Structures are given as structure tokens and as C-alpha cells.
């Protein structure tokens, strides 16, 4: 069974205190300095009697207060010539500096990428467009005389069909004008009124106008819209009749949510605008 002498305990406590105080300097410098001090203690003890407790106390006292030594070492490091890079290398070792710098650069790149992706808003209206407003029996709603034929850029004004609900079909065309692909998560209707049965389909081959209406193709699902591509969608919904004689509600965009990298964005994409004139009877 071994026993630890008081002198050994004094030395052990001192080295422990010094190690603690040296936290303010780099790991490599701390390790090197601790070794030097330990060697210094060992050399000094060779000159002392085996268990000269008082001698060991004096020896440790001569080496100096751990906190003072730590600050002295730190000050020496700071006084040392050379640039920041050299000091860091001296303090922490080349491998550690390289890894820390690499991690730092990667973090900066990630932050830049996140900021870019957050600002990436490439959606706009594509080439296609159109709208159908249908009565419950499938017949097209009347338009305000001449509004459909006017070629002045003004939207067509549809008269609200006389029914509790009527159907609206809107062609929305999404165009990705940015250099990177995005994922389209959802597309909504342009109406802010009470609506039901909103259905979104990919564009169908059969889009003949008339009472048959537009059927559209496959049901909407999340899809990738590549750079400089557009995708036409058919949005169908039923809208409740509004009782406001003569007032006109305008529709000009659809809500779209999309993802790019880690960000989800909500935006509105323009559609061919149309108006619905509200009726006095439903």
C-alpha cells in the first residue's frame, strides 16, 4: 500500500491549482508550461531532503502564485511578436487552428447559403392563363356586356350566377425565373370569400371552353419546378354567392407555398385577372 506524503500532496495541489489557473491560455502552451514547472519542481526536490515539507513550501512559493504565473504567461503570449495567426498557432497548435478555421469557414458559407436561400424568390406568372365561372348546371356565367371583348387590359367581369354556389376554374401558370430549382408545396385559390371543394390539378390536355368546363390532368402533388420552367395548373373551387348588388370583386393572384433549401416561402403569383360582379339574388 502506498502512502502520499505531505510534500507530495503540496506539490499535487500546487500543480492542480496551476493547471486550473492556466485555463486562460491555449491548451498546447498550458501543457508545455505545466511540464516545465513539473520538471522544475522535480529538479528542485532533488536538492531537498526526502520529506522536507518546509523546503517544498518554499520551493513552491519561489515558483510563484499560480494565478500570477498564468497571467504572466498570457501577457508574454500577447507581447509576442507576429500576427494573430501565428499567436493562435502557438497557443493551440496548427491542427486545431486549421480545424477551427475550417469549421468557421463552413459556418460562414452555411450562413451565406441560408441568407441567399431565404432571399431566393424566383416565382412569377407563366405564359398560360384563363378563367371560367360556371353556374351549377355547368353553363358559363354571363359577362358584363363588352367587358370580355375590351382590349384595354381591363379584366373580364363575370356576373355572379343566380345560385347559392357557383364554380370557378382558374388557370394558373407558375414560372421559375431563377437559376435554381424549387419545390412547389401548395397552391390555393384566388378568392378570399367563402369557398369549398378547392381542387388543384396539373394542366389537362382537354381544355376546351364551354359547358364541359376544363377537366385538368392529374391531381396536384408536391413537385419540383426547375429553373426557367413553367407549370400550368387548373384550380377549381365552389364559391358561395355574395349578396351585394352591383359590387365587383377582383381576383388577380393565387397563394403559393414553395421550398428552397431549408426555407418555406409563401407568395402570391399573378394570374390573368378577372372580376365577379355580385348579384342581388342568389
Amino acid at each position, binding site marked *: 500500500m502506498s502512502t502520499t506524503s505531505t510534500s507530495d500532496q503540496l506539490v499535487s495541489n500546487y500543480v492542480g491549482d496551476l493547471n486550473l489557473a492556466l485555463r486562460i491560455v491555449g491548451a498546447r*502552451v498550458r501543457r*508545455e*508550461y505545466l511540464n*516545465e*514547472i513539473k*520538471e*522544475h519542481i*522535480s*529538479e*528542485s526536490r*532533488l536538492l531537498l531532503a526526502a520529506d522536507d515539507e518546509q523546503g517544498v513550501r518554499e520551493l513552491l512559493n*519561489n*515558483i*510563484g*502564485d499560480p494565478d*500570477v*504565473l498564468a497571467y*504572466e*504567461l498570457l501577457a*508574454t*503570449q500577447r*507581447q*509576442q*511578436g*507576429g500576427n494573430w495567426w501565428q499567436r493562435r498557432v*502557438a497557443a493551440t497548435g496548427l491542427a486545431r487552428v486549421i480545424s477551427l478555421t475550417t469549421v468557421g469557414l463552413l459556418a460562414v458559407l452555411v450562413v451565406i447559403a441560408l441568407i441567399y436561400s431565404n432571399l431566393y424568390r424566383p416565382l412569377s406568372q407563366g405564359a398560360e392563363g384563363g378563367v371560367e365561372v360556371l353556374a351549377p348546371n355547368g353553363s358559363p356565367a354571363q359577362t358584363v356586356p363588352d367587358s370580355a371583348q375590351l382590349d384595354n387590359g381591363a379584366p373580364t367581369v363575370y356576373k355572379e350566377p343566380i345560385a347559392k354556389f357557383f364554380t370557378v376554374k382558374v388557370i394558373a401558370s407558375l414560372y421559375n425565373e431563377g437559376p435554381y430549382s424549387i419545390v412547389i408545396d401548395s397552391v390555393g385559390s384566388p378568392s378570399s370569400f367563402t369557398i369549398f371543394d378547392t381542387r388543384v390539378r396539373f394542366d389537362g390536355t382537354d381544355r376546351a371552353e364551354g359547358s364541359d368546363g376544363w377537366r385538368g390532368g392529374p391531381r396536384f402533388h408536391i413537385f419540383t419546378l426547375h429553373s426557367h420552367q413553367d407549370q400550368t395548373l387548373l384550380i377549381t373551387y365552389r364559391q358561395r354567392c355574395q349578396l351585394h348588388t352591383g359590387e365587383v370583386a377582383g381576383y388577380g393572384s393565387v397563394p403559393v407555398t414553395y421550398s428552397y433549401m431549408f426555407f418555406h416561402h409563401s407568395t402570391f403569383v399573378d394570374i390573368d385577372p378577372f372580376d365577379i360582379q355580385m348579384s342581388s339574388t342568389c
Partner: protein
Amino acid sequence: MVVNSDKLLVQMRRGSIEYCVLALLETEDRYGFDITRELASAGGLVTSEGTVYPLLTRLRNDGLVDTYWKDSTEGPQRRYYRITKVGRQALESFISQWKPFRDAVDAILARRG
């Protein structure tokens, strides 16, 4: 102004102690403990022996000394410090400045009678 004598000593020591180390190494290579004890025995040059090691590191980083390991009969290998050519030049330069500086200070102080 009241001058703290400890601070004064620290300031005076700061500018000269590294040249004292170089002077010790001019005649023979020494290891850390040996250098520390020599400085401590000179009186007033070192208050904390532990502060000598950062100084030796600085001298080494500045290229004024270099080191090598040597076996010891009394224990593990010792790191020996050896003055370099640059270190000798620095020491010569210090000595050439130090002597007239010391004489000038002494001359002024001697006027106090």
C-alpha cells in the same frame, strides 16, 4: 506621485532580464532549472521562478535561443537552451547600449551627494 517599489523593480527587470539569460547562455548551454536558479541567486532579477519559462519560450520563438534534449543522470531528459548567432548579436547590441545608459543614470544619481 508615490512609486510602488515592486512595480519599479518589475519595470527595470522587464527590459533587461532576457539579456541576462542570453549572457548566462553565452558561456555554456543550460537547462531551465539551471537558468532559473542562476537568475534567482543573483538577487532581485526573479521574484517568481515560474516566470522564467515563458521568457525562455519567447526567446526561443524570437530565434535568440534554440533548444535540444539531453539525457540526465538524475532523471528524465532535460531541455537545454543554447544561444544562437542572432542571440549573440542581440546581446552585443544590448551591452553596447547598457553600459553608457547605466553610467549616465549613475552619474545623475551621484549628483545627489
